[in-house]
């Protein structure tokens, strides 16, 4: 059975609409599960429609069946096994696969232009070549950029910025080179595959040089940005294939990633350009390590912390990346349960850039069975700190640093912070007194109402539970 072109186009629109509904469902946790189901149905429709249009059989059926089965099994296993704390690197890895797939599809179309319907008068149409090379270029940047982001998030390489000398000029030269090659490719009518490969090689390098200068804590922006790129690559190839499902989905994903990047940048009060140009934190860290004055801090034990919190009426827990590193989400929830049994009111406050990707902390707390209506975003809970007896900060640093408000010369000046210093007592769980990612000392450590609980987050919380 083969489908008419119009019917196929109609089915692709149906799958695009289902994808829109999948995103729409995420407006609340109740509707999100149904939304995800819509997404799966949309994908099934797109795949079946394509198989009916191309009419597979024999060799192509074996290759397609084998490829989908192999990849599908691998994907399903990964999805079941991956710990929730590893979600940022998993998403980065997935982005790299979309990027590579986009490159491969562009290459395939370039080598079989007839079958892709992009030939005219014996040469490949000019705008098809533009779409193909843009798809391949964005795909290649997404691929290597995501591999670097993965390595940084997964700890395979250091999270600190790697600054090549003259990196802006290098990146600019690479980008110019790509533009020139695209122009030459369009002019040649696609007769010279070396131009296509040249574009791919330059953009593969560009993906690396763009991401290596960006530090670990800026990864929420990078991961969102690469998410956006993978969408634009898909959309570019959608034009080549004249496929509405790809064009619409690419636009959805592209704008989704762009919005998330914007939200993350706003959470840090930094311009998008300043983040992606990289190098943040490198200078400040160097300066801070030189002359650090010894200031007195008040240290506390688990027993002290348990005593203070037991006698509190309202405790706000502020989780950060340290919670994920120490895998302390379950212990934290147990501590909150124990406090609730003592009649303490417990809430969680989440900063938009806490963790290594958008929503990272929410997922971890959800995994630990924290009800989502106890978890609040910055703007919804910030005024509550003044009424709280205890702010329990666990593995978060820069997002609570009052220097953002008081010191205009600070690298994080103007960044919205959680006002934990307004709480009567601040309990600060931290491994050591070292500064956070931004490389700046946190005055909060030395405040009169702060008690430092210097230990591994999970161990400390478990000891507090014992003393409650």
């Amino acid at each position, binding site marked *: 059975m083969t489908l008419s072109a119009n019917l196929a186009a109609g089915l692709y629109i149906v799958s695009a609409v289902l994808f829109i509904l999948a995103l729409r469902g995420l407006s609340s946790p109740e509707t999100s599960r149904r939304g995800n189901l819509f997404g799966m149905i949309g994908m099934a429709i797109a795949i079946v429609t394509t198989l009916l249009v191309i009419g597979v059989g024999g060799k192509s059926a074996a290759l397609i069946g084998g490829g989908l089965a192999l990849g599908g099994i691998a994907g399903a296993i990964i999805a079941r096994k991956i710990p929730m704390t590893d979600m940022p690197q998993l998403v980065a890895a997935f982005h790299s696969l979309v990027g590579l797939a986009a490159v491969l599809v562009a290459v395939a179309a370039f080598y079989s232009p007839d079958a892709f319907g992009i030939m005219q008068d014996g040469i490949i149409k000019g705008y098809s070549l533009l779409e193909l090379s843009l798809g391949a270029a964005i795909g290649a940047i997404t691929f290597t950029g995501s591999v670097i982001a993965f390595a940084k998030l997964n700890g395979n390489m250091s999270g600190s910025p790697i600054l090549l000398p003259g990196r802006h000029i290098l990146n600019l030269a690479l980008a110019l080179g790509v533009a020139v090659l695209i122009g030459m490719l369009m002019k040649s009518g696609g007769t010279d595959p070396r131009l296509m490969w040249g574009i791919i090689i330059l953009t593969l390098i560009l993906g690396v040089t763009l991401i290596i200068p960006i530090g670990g804590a800026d990864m929420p922006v990078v991961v*969102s940005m690469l998410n956006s790129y993978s969408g634009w690559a898909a959309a570019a190839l959608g034009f080549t294939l004249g496929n509405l499902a790809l064009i619409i989905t690419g636009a959805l994903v592209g704008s989704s990633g762009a919005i998330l990047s914007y939200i993350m940048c706003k959470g840090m009060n930094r311009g998008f350009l300043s983040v992606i140009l990289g190098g943040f934190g490198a200078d400040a860290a160097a300066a801070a390590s030189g002359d650090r004055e010894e200031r007195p801090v008040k240290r506390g034990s688990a027993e002290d912390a348990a005593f203070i919190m037991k006698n509190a009426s309202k405790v706000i827990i502020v989780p950060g990346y340290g919670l994920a590193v120490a895998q302390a989400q379950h212990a934290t929830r147990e501590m909150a349960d124990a406090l609730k049994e003592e009649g303490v009111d417990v809430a969680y406050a989440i900063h938009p850039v806490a963790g290594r990707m958008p929503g990272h902390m929410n997922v971890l707390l959800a995994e630990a069975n924290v009800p989502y209506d106890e978890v609040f975003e910055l703007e919804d809970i910030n005024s509550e700190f003044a009424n709280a007896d205890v702010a329990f900060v666990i593995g978060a640093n820069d997002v609570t640093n009052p220097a953002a408000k008081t010191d205009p010369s600070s690298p994080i000046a103007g960044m919205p912070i959680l006002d934990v210093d307004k709480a009567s007592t601040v309990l600060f769980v931290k491994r050591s007194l070292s500064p956070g990612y931004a490389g700046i000392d946190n005055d909060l450590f030395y405040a009169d109402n702060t008690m430092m609980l210097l230990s591994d987050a999970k161990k400390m919380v478990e000891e507090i539970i014992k003393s409650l």
Partner: protein
Amino acid sequence: MLSMLILAGGGAVSPVVFQFAIFILAIFVGYYVVWSVTPALHTPLMAVTNAISSVIVVGALIAVAAGVGSGSGISTWAGAVAAALCAVNIFGGFLVTQRMLAMYKKKQK
């Protein structure tokens, strides 16, 4: 409407223009839909956008058929590998999203 455009423009409008119009409108749809996503679900949002952007698998399948049809080994294998990569993303992306979403629970009163 198409005929009106032809009259107005003095010539046929290329289908690429219509595709571009759909592209622009879809960006707006994406803009409004994504702003309505609750920040608590931003991680599932990334996982699911990742899964749906693997609809590029459509191109991979066409590439395999095209490569086999035209005898181009490069197209065939590029398509087959791309199909496998997309399948990792599709299954991995949707299933991990499902796993995450199942964890979001309301307070038991």
